[in-house]
């Protein structure tokens, strides 16, 4: 029995930590979706770049972990600006309204190739700054990195929300999301805010990468699945509802880890089965705004 509880505790902590990573990435989807109606399907590859670049800074250059985090966030932020200019802005005028899906997927494919060229195709161990020792809490063994992930990721989600609601820059971004034209009339530089949205969104993914790498591995193909699962989290909560997204991330993280206790095969597929059911019942997510068509 105690073994069961130990496993349950471990699953809960792992679920919350991976779930908070999903939430972190998904908040990035939210920020760009509300401002532009587009999002970066290569968010997972930005996460991967964050992890691998962080690894280079932390291990190869021997910089402190905190500096590596900042470096990873800065690099992915700059890449976000480039993404907006190169793959989002040129396609937003197109007739097919979902062109950005493919243009961002294309960028993610290129990034994967770049990562293989730069870091090789192998999985690389990312040493945790908190050591590899397992923390014994009761009967459960927990990695300190997992606790750090929960605190750092949820703290960042919270900080970003405070930034959006309280700071002038954040309010300007929300204003653009609410009504582009009205925001422009009020003197807000809309194109610049859109770039900023992608910078912020990509930086969040980069942060997610360097946070999660110590409990997984860092390698070129690490990003795709978390990126898609984070998208599922955003869809689950409703792309326009940051609180729903946070809950969505945590629910999906927990669901996977808890079901993983029963059967590791279920763990992989359950998220997608779950999201199909949710969308069949609520086409704009469980906590999304219901659309009222004006006729």
């Amino acid at each position, binding site marked *: 029995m105690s073994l069961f509880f130990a496993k349950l505790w471990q699953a809960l902590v792992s679920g919350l930590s991976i779930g908070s990573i999903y939430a972190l990435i998904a908040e990035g989807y939210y920020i760009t*979706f509300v401002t532009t*109606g587009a*999002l970066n399907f290569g968010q997972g590859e930005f996460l991967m770049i964050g992890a691998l670049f962080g690894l280079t800074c932390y291990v190869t250059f021997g910089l402190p972990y905190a500096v590596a985090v900042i470096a990873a966030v800065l690099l992915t932020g700059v890449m976000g600006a480039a993404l907006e200019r*190169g*793959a989002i802005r*040129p*396609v937003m005028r*197109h*007739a*097919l*309204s*979902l*062109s950005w*899906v*493919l*243009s961002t*997927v*294309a*960028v*993610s*494919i*290129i990034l*994967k*190739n*770049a990562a*293989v*060229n730069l870091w090789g195709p192998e999985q690389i161990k990312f040493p945790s700054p908190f050591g590899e020792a397992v923390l014994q809490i009761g009967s459960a063994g927990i990695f300190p990195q997992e606790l750090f992930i929960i605190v750092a990721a949820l703290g960042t989600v919270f900080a970003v929300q405070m930034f959006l609601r309280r700071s002038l820059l954040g309010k300007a971004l929300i204003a653009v999301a609410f009504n582009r034209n009205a925001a422009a009339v009020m003197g807000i530089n809309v194109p610049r805010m859109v770039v900023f949205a992608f910078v912020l969104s990509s930086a969040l993914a980069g942060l997610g990468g360097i946070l999660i790498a110590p409990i997984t591995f860092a390698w070129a193909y690490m990003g*795709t699945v978390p990126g*898609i699962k984070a*998208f*599922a989290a955003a*869809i689950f909560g409703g*792309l326009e509802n940051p609180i729903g997204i946070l809950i969505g991330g945590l629910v999906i993280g927990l669901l996977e880890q808890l079901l993983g206790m029963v059967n590791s*095969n279920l763990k*992989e*597929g359950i*998220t*997608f*089965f779950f*999201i*199909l*059911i949710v*969308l*069949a019942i609520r*086409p*704009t*997510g469980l906590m999304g705004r219901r659309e*009222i*068509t*004006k*006729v």
Partner: protein
Amino acid sequence: MQLPIFAFSGPKDWALVALAALILALLPVVFDDPFFILVMQSLAYLFIVTLGLDILVGWTGQISLGHAGLYAVGAYTTALASARLGLPFWLSAPLGVALAGLFGAALAVPSLRAKGPYLAMVTIAFGFMAEVTSNRWSLTGGPMGIMSIPPPTLPDGSEMTATQYFWLIAGVALLCHLLAANLFRSRMGRTLLALQGSEIAAQSVGVNVYRYKVLAFVISSVYAGIGGVFFAHQNGFINSDTFVFSLSVSLLTSALMGGSGTLFGPLVGSVILNLIPTVFASLHDYHLYIYGGIILVTIVFLPRGIVGSLQQMPALRRLRRPPAVITPDRSVLDFARDSAQDGPVLVVRGLAKSFGGIRALSGVDVAIKRGTVHGLIGPNGSGKSTFVNVVTGVFRASAGKIMLGERELPPQGPHRMAQHGITRTFQSIRLFVDLSVIDNVMVGFHLQLKSGLWAHLLQTRAAVAEEAAYRGKAMALLELVGIAERAHDPAQNLSYGQQRLLEIARALAARPQLLMLDEPAAGVNPTELHHLSRIIRDIKAAGVTLLVIEHHMELIMGISDVISVFDFGQKISEGSAAAVREDKKVIEAYLGVAEADHDGAVHA
């Protein structure tokens, strides 16, 4: 969305088809090289899958990032049925196709109401579920896969040669292409394009939106299943490495690269994209750069795809066949004449509608007499449009009865109300922008056109004749509203006023007992206004009952037999134009109460 340059409609087209068949038949004979034939086989079945995806993307505007999953269903089904159950190729192959179709139908359910990124999620989720299932399930063998899938056989049981198998795949591909082309230029393709323009407007003339979306999903999945089946028997071995997200991306890219919604786009796109790995095989370290770069360049610089962009070139536009001359069939309005009896066509009792706490309509009684023009006026926000929306089934009433003559109608969707003979136009214009003017009207005939899916797939004589007959009727309706000379222009090129007239013609095509016009004069210039009141009189003379919402007082007073006045969701007055004009309540509703009006100015 571009209509195809070439449409199959005469002996010349069948000559083209025969030529294509001849070239395909000779290819493996002339270039008799095993590797070449293998590549040709792959190109042919990947083309079928791309074509299926294009039916979804190009015709319905839905995106699918999970087609690898449907491809997998076809491949695994035929592989398991033939390798494990020992079924012959001719049985296992159709089984694989059928199961893929069934999965498509199931996948359609969560896709029906989801839009944009939510819809993308549905298809991604399905694709990943298929990927995980093929990777983890003992039945599918995971990365070990399914070995020794028997090669395709001839009907006599002997093994097909590579050339024979290519002939089979290419033949099926040609057939799939012809069927898709037929469907594309038939009522089905038109209706699907209409849905892209406006689902609500399509419903208002009786189109069952769900049915069409499910249909598109099923056809698309069947095509994906066909591709999967051919793939499995070509390789003799399948495993989970094939059916991954990147295959779905690649399929979608080839559909878009060629030009979605064009006749030859899927062919061009799939051939080019699927040749890339073969051509750049030596640059293995960089193939993702090339591949990603091609997708990006295509999406950014060729948003219409290769064929779509070519069609935009003036030189090629001239190649397009001039539209046939259509003789108007003026009997189109005869349907209403016999129904000119007495009594109300529509009776509404105690109709109420609330949105959250806002009561847009609170207990309205209206009876619309057959053969009349019934005006509906009132200040902005008085509930007029809500009234039309509830009666036409766009919104569900919170309370009250809607009776058609003597019969009470249960609450039901707009396409059902159209079947009961109630159609409408829209305050904010909702045309099918991807269609020509006359095709907009043709969609209006939806409920009367009888030929079904198979008739259109095969372009039977009856289906072609029916189509031609109704084109004549459509022309007569365009004549009635005075825009016949614009019949073949894109609907979006019409002036604002003409677009409103086109909406009237489209609604009339649905043979309404009651036609509801929601602000037909909004944004219409004075010349057109005069024209409009004549059209309304003509429609009335033909026996169709009209309900007209309008702010233009001169127009509404001039044409209406009876006028109802709404204010704050209630009917405050009803009667002849003269009576309503004198009604104190009406004057108050429009101008405010006398003492509040200090300066005596009129604020209407």
